[in-house]
């Protein structure tokens, strides 16, 4: 059976690794993405997500360069996104070494783009990234443009619609929990996992080993983790061996692979 995946999520700003809280607060520099990716590769993570959070023509070139350098020495799947609007954008990132391309705002503005990209490059290449915020006690809503623009879409309904448009997987991120290390949004993860048939990667809130267990047990196929790996002593190796010892179906840790 498929292994549950541990995925470091890299946010890039002008080609540098950065991390915020709730998307905008408390910017922290987190180093060189290629160097950090190599460390995570040695730790045996399952995949990498790289998102350019302030995309521009200039930053696209930097992202392409970073992905090309990563793919020379790191042999695992990469999902790359940020400002992807055209088939040419998708093609450029795939050629640089991305395996999957993540689309967010443009899928909301132009849903047919998602379908067209899936038809051109294959469903498995297209990840839809969905950021959402709670806007009432029992109500969440999708935000695009890096969390700046509110759109009247329910995140789970939107995810289902993206599945109909042939996305290969869904990356679902809670803006409220981003960078807070206060735990994943388990209720929403549980609901999303029970209605989606494509793999669900969840993001936002992981701050402890137990948080990752909770999200995977709520039905996520993969946990995306940023702050915990960057700013605490919980390394991917430690998380993996903890999940493994708790009986979760993850790949054996590199220490037991020798």
């Amino acid at each position: 059976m498929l292994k549950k995946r541990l995925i470091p999520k890299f946010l890039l700003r002008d080609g540098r690794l950065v991390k915020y809280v709730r998307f905008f607060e408390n910017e922290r520099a987190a180093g060189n993405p290629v160097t950090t990716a190599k460390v995570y590769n040695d730790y045996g993570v399952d995949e990498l997500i790289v998102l350019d959070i302030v995309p521009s023509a200039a930053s696209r070139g930097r992202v392409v360069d970073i992905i090309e350098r990563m793919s020379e020495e790191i042999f695992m799947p990469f999902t790359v996104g940020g400002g992807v609007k055209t088939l040419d954008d998708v093609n450029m990132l795939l050629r640089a070494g991305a395996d999957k391309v993540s689309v967010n705002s443009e899928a909301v503005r132009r849903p047919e783009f998602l379908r067209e990209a899936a038809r051109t490059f294959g469903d498995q290449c297209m990840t839809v990234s969905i950021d959402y915020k709670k806007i009432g006690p029992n109500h969440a809503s999708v935000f695009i443009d890096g969390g700046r623009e509110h759109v009247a879409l329910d995140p789970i309904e939107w995810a289902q619609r993206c599945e109909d448009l042939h996305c290969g997987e869904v990356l679902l991120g809670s803006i409220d929990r981003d960078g807070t290390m206060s735990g994943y949004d388990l209720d929403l993860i549980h609901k999303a996992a029970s209605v989606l048939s494509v793999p669900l990667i969840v993001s936002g809130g992981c701050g402890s080993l137990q948080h990752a267990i909770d999200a995977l047990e709520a039905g996520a196929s993969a946990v995306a983790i940023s702050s915990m790996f960057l700013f605490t002593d919980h390394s991917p190796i430690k998380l993996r061996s903890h999940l493994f010892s708790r009986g979760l179906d993850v790949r054996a840790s590199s220490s037991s692979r020798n």
Partner: protein
Amino acid sequence: MSGVAIVDYGINNVRSVKNAVEYCGFDPVVTHDADAIADASHVILPGVGAFGDAMSNIRARGIDEMLERHVREKGKPFLAVCLGMQLLANTSEEHADDGVAHRGLGWFDADVLRLMPNDPALKIPHMGWNMVAKERDHPILANIRESNLAFYFVHSFAMRCKDAGDVVGFAQYGQPVTAIIARDNIAATQFHPEKSQDTGIELMSNFLRWNP
């Protein structure tokens, strides 16, 4: 003879295969040139994309005949990856909406069928890391412990071989999924060794040193 020919049939992502060959210490050339394939010590047929388009490109460039001559007749070591493996089958039902299956190279007596896991909770595509259980040993798996045979898969269709002796290993995904096949100088993997970290690099390195 020198170098490793990575067969270029107009698909997107051969960069990671090329990088992996370089990382293993070999000299790859991405090509659809007959002389370059004739000259190579090893041939790799990568694959991402749709079966029908891939076969059209292969036939249009005469790659089917080049491979027939250099791989099947002359016995060059050959590794096909993912869609590349599926192309070795007789037929594929991928996007065969009109009910007519696409014809493959027919090197293996096998058909490519849509994955139909027996558990509705299992998602398609079969995407992610899965274990491969060996049916038999093969040189490309040399020195890899059985507990480490986790590889990265991304596919919605899979090969079903009529001759069980062609299968080296299966993964399980609500059904047996043909993961590695081999006969003579030919080996193929449904998963992506070039995306499977240390174990995948070990497999590729074994292939590049294989002299059947």
